[in-house]
């Protein structure tokens, strides 16, 4: 068992991969709590796709792909904030327009690249085992910055997410805080691309947070649980990827999904299986429990 656990760690690429996956798992899970609570799953997915033109441009210019992705994601995040704050256009419409435009621009730019670009496919599907030392540093520094801001502004983000009207009457800059949250989301997505890729980053944002939401009814424990689930999924997913020789990003996301399904079915009192057990017990007891919505 121990050799089974240690063996992958003897490889340098596996050490860097695990470190990157853990950082990304925790980061996505924490920021993802706001994505889940404010129903921004579509936005998260859109931002992930919107980095494509930035990546393509950086590739064409021979610059760092992550920095290209970062600039594109922040530009789109600010653009969504700008269009939806003018009032005439709803946020999800603004997202739809900018998301499609950015994705198309990315496709057009990539089509000008003649050779098959391995680096670009890594951005699309993620390749945590290809993480370099520089990437690891970049991920670490950006991840810490995002987590520190989320921790410092915990109270402010809670306020604007739960009750923006109170936020305004208390004279907090609600629009600024919302845009800041979008920028943090953009940063999170960019540092996660290397690990899980454009297609799967939304899952890493949403799944651990949604699982934690089923288990607790307060924000702070929800964030801690979500972080734990994110880290666990990354770790298990990576080992599975190593031993079964499957794509790492997919393995990580599928592990997180499995955790979600288990919790959804078996969570005490509210899970599907518990409801089924109550129904089987039948009689007045079961009916009462069903009517009152608690106890068994």
């Amino acid at each position, binding site marked *: 068992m121990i050799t089974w656990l240690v063996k992958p760690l003897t490889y340098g690429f596996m050490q860097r991969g695990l470190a990157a996956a853990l950082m990304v798992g925790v980061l996505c899970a924490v920021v993802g709590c706001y994505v889940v609570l404010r129903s921004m799953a579509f936005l998260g997915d859109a931002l992930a796709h919107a980095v494509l033109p930035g990546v393509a441009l950086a590739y064409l210019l021979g610059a760092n792909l992550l920095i290209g992705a970062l600039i594109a994601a922040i530009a789109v995040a600010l653009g969504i904030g700008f269009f939806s704050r003018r009032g005439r256009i709803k946020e999800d419409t603004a997202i739809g327009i900018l998301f499609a435009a950015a994705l198309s621009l990315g496709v057009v730019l990539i089509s000008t690249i003649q050779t098959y670009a391995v680096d670009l496919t890594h951005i699309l599907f993620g390749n945590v085992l290809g993480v370099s030392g520089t990437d690891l540093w970049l991920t670490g520094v950006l991840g810490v910055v995002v987590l520190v801001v989320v921790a410092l*502004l915990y*109270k402010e983000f809670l306020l604007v997410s739960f*009750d923006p*009207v*109170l936020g*305004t009457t*208390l*004279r*907090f800059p609600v629009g600024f805080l919302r845009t800041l949250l979008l920028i943090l989301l953009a940063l999170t997505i960019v540092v996660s691309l290397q690990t899980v890729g454009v297609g799967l980053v939304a899952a890493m944002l949403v799944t651990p947070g949604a699982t934690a939401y089923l288990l607790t009814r307060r*924000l702070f424990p929800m964030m801690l649980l979500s972080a734990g689930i994110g880290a666990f999924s990354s770790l298990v997913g990576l080992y599975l990827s190593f031993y079964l020789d499957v794509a790492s990003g997919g393995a990580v996301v599928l592990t997180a999904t499995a955790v979600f399904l288990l919790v959804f079915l078996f969570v005490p009192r509210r899970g599907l299986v518990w409801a089924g057990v109550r129904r089987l017990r039948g009689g007045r007891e079961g009916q009462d429990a069903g009517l009152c919505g608690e106890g068994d």
Partner: protein
Amino acid sequence: MPNESDPARLDLYRISVAYNGTSVLCDVTLQVPHGAQVAVVGPNGAGKSTLFKALVGLLPIQRGHVHIHGRSLGAHQDCVAYVPQREEVDWHFPVTVADVVMMGRYGRLGWVRRPRPVDREIVARSLEQLGITDLAGRPVGDLSGGQQQRVFLARALAQEPHILLMDEPFTGVDVATQEAVLQLLEQLKPADVTVMVSTHDLNLAAARFGRVLLLNRRVVAYGVPEQVLTPTHIKEAFGGQVLFLDEGAVIVDRCCPTGTLGGSL
């Protein structure tokens, strides 16, 4: 009963407020003295909610100015608390009753700072005043409508406001909550908190409030109930919605709970 010679705590001078491009309030001038309790009455669309929203910065004031303690609006970050008619919050958000009431302290805490023991004491006291101490640990989504209303009143108290604005706190709530609001008004009197409450219930306005503001997009009348709630003023404010009978006036309000006026007028 507040004295007319007290310094005006809330001073509105010729303010106009627009909502979605059409002006709702025009040229409103009034002074509310220190610790006064004012009932704001008027027909639907009179601008009662608009007035409150303008006072807490939710709607821009287009003309005129508002002074609180002689300083312009916005200079005081937290001294005006507002309880909307219906809270538009996400009821599935993972926050407890105590968490929501603590949000009332955020303005005083300022950026980044965490709640201190004194904030927790104030939250506990606010919960107690509204009789919801036993709900402190419950998620807000699990509460009844009346309980939710009391949570938001407790939050407004936790703000330790100098001016408290309540939009229709008596509409669509259970008797216990209505009683809790009336008790709260009594408790606020010795604390010298200035209160403005919008209501459809003219009897309640006359019986429980020292002052009444009769509003219909501008000030129709403002002062003690006997001087404000006269047939002439009511007819002016409510127009065709008033039916005059021998023993008094009946307001026929098309959409909202009917307000009636007894024979004393």
